[in-house]
């Protein structure tokens, strides 16, 4: 073998060794245990929280996270709104962080409108993704779906003054963490949605579908049942706007349910059957709460003073001052400075119950509110002498002072508005979420909403012109001049 060939082979061998070493190095450092992500942001919210990372690390091997970044709601793009770019930027960076921090247990994929059509269709079919769903987290035999609306709290566009939609807050990290916890634990609580007494269906988009999806997001398994007698293995019963009183068999089941101190969420709006309301008052008497007839109205504060007599009087805007500062359901709402909009509510009252239970008023009106009675002339939405002004309760929570049979607390949330769980769910989502968490036994869990920290830039015309001129002409021009000077000096 000639010396040249020998050296040539040696060089090629060394190059091959270097390539192999680099591949080995990269493989080693791509191992989850050796991978570190450092959050450079001052708030520490650029990446996933410790809770979410810990939940991701407990996922079963072979779990998969697919993010679908499709701008599906046109109203989020009206008037040059920035909702989707901001949201997708946040989701992609956290999905990547999830992949890195999951300890190799999570395979992630981001599908957007630029993804090849074949890959897009394949992933949509494989994950059975429906419109509006942004993240699908799957393990071998379970899946969790997180919708776009669950991730971002969005103020919708105002067509009247051409205000674009904007993201107020987001909870991508918390939602991912919740989904990962649910997947890792492999067990879910069951919520029975009773629909056999004139209630809307849990699959009807205009009915209780939104509530059903919210339950899924919060790790409940919603089950549509005809009546309490069917709620054999449920952990929670939900009643929304009951139109008829219970049949005797269901009434007996209901009494047994209450005697067993199981959880209930009951929402009776002004249109609920009076007979059903009366029945509930009897059922809940021991718990010290019940429902009163009427539609709660409040005067509207306007530039012209307090206005009454309009249907808007029945739309109750509740700020943090109207929430209980003592209860685990409402404390997170106060901390997050949330605003609720309750459309059409009847008063929830306190009854003289037994001493075994506590009662807490969760939401209340202002002192000028009254309950408009449904007289033969219909609702007038204005205060009259037969009505009394004063603070009304819109939601009340009760529970045992001390655990009862089988350690249950007998938690009940009585809500005077049925719309808050159907058409108006969007405006009360955090209250309902917080209530469901409490009913499910989580005494205190943050909603996880954080601000995106928007940084708008609104320079005047001169500033824009100056920035443009310096960027396009100034800096390159000076550089070319220096180059010319160098050229001239070298020629000399």
């Amino acid at each position, binding site marked *: 073998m000639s*010396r*040249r060939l020998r*050296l*040539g082979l040696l*060089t090629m061998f060394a*190059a091959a060794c*270097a*390539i192999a070493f*680099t591949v080995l*190095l*990269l493989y080693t*450092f791509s191992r989850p245990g050796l991978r*570190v*992500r*450092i*959050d*450079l*942001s*001052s708030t520490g919210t*650029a990446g996933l929280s410790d809770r979410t990372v810990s939940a991701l690390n407990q996922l079963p091997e072979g779990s998969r996270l697919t993010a679908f970044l499709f701008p599906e709601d046109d109203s989020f793009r009206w008037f*040059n709104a*920035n909702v989707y770019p*901001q949201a997708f*930027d946040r989701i*992609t*960076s956290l999905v*990547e*962080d999830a992949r*890195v921090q999951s300890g190799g247990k999570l395979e992630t*994929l981001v*599908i957007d409108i630029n*993804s*090849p059509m074949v*890959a897009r269709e394949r992933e949509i079919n494989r994950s059975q993704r429906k419109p509006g769903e942004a993240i699908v987290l799957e393990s071998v035999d379970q899946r969790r779906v997180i919708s776009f609306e669950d991730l971002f709290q969005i103020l919708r566009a105002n067509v009247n003054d051409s205000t*674009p939609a904007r993201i107020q807050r987001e909870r991508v990290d918390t939602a991912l963490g919740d989904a990962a916890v649910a997947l890792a634990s492999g067990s879910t609580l069951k919520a029975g949605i009773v629909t056999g007494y004139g209630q809307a269906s849990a699959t009807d988009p205009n009915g209780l579908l939104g509530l059903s999806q919210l339950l899924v997001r919060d790790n409940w398994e919603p089950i549509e049942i005809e009546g309490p007698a069917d709620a054999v293995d449920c952990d929670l019963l939900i009643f929304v706007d009951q139109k008829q009183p219970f049949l005797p068999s269901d009434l007996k089941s209901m009494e047994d349910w209450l005697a067993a101190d199981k959880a209930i969420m009951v929402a009776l709006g002004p249109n609920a059957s009076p007979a059903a309301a009366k029945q509930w008052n009897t059922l809940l008497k021991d718990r010290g709460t019940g429902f009163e007839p009427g539609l709660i109205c409040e005067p509207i504060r306007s530039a012209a003073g307090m206005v009454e007599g309009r249907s808007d009087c029945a739309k109750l805007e509740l700020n943090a001052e109207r929430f209980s500062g003592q209860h685990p359901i409402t404390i997170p709402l106060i901390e997050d400075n949330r605003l609720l909009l309750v459309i059409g509510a009847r008063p929830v009252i306190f009854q003289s119950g037994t001493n075994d239970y506590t009662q807490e008023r969760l939401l209340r009106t202002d002192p000028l509110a009254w309950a408009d009675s449904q007289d033969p002339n219909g609702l007038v939405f204005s205060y009259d002498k037969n009505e009394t002004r004063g603070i009304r309760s819109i939601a009340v929570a009760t529970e045992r002072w001390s655990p009862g049979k089988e350690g249950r607390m007998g938690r009940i949330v009585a809500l005077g508005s049925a719309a808050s769980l159907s058409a108006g769910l969007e405006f009360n989502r955090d209250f309902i979420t917080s209530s469901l968490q409490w009913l499910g036994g989580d005494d205190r869990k943050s909603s996880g909403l954080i601000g*995106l*920290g*928007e*940084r*708008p*830039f*609104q*320079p005047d015309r001169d*500033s824009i012109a*100056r*920035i443009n001129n*310096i*960027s*396009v002409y100034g*800096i*390159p*021009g000076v*550089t*070319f001049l220096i*180059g*010319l000077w*160098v*050229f001239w*000096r*070298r020629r000399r």
Partner: protein
Amino acid sequence: MRAFVALWKREVFSMLVSPFAFVLLGVWFLLNGMLFVVALSTQQVMADLRLLPPFLFGSGMLVWLLLPAFPPLLCIRLFAEEHRVGTLEPLLTAPIRDFAVVLAKYLAACVFFLLFWGGVLLLFLLLHWHGGNLDWARVLGGMLGAILVSFLFLATGLWASSWSSNLVLGAGGGAALNYLLLFVPALFELNEGPLGSVARSMHLPNFLDRGFSAGLLDSYALVYLLGLSALFLFLTWMRLVSRRWVP
């Protein structure tokens, strides 16, 4: 060491007095300035300046079009031109190790390329001085990522430059290699199985878009960028060594 420092200084100086380097720098600033102005004129960025770093350093044209092309252009004079004018042989026979030659030239190119990024940083400072409330963790993170990617592209450019005395081939080869590094992982990113996994772990814009310019430093991205740069430097050294018996 003294010879290494002297060679490094010579290389930096020769770039600073090269009209071609300044033309390159001027074109870079011009194109970046235009991209910056275009980005800034979009409603999305105006509504939230946090989106500017990912736009510029992650998914924008700077990374996909400009960044792969400029480092090889800067590198052509490092070996290809030395080879063309016949100064490479004296350099390789001088009392300095071959690897020190490679390293000195590479570090000189890196230092000079920081000037390229200095101009981009100036654009952000300009925005800041005009009242722009920037998220500096994202800006500096994105810039660090982009600098590391450009250092990788300089290493590939240096390797391409070491192969021939033909300047077009040197620059074109380096740029082609850089575009391959960018586009090949992007093509296979959505594949299932090991191919997709490997492609995703090599996808440079994802490192920038979802990592650096989101304010997150990933140890793997750092190792990937520095490791590949070191590999190409080693291959350049191998190429120089092999010149002694493979012309």
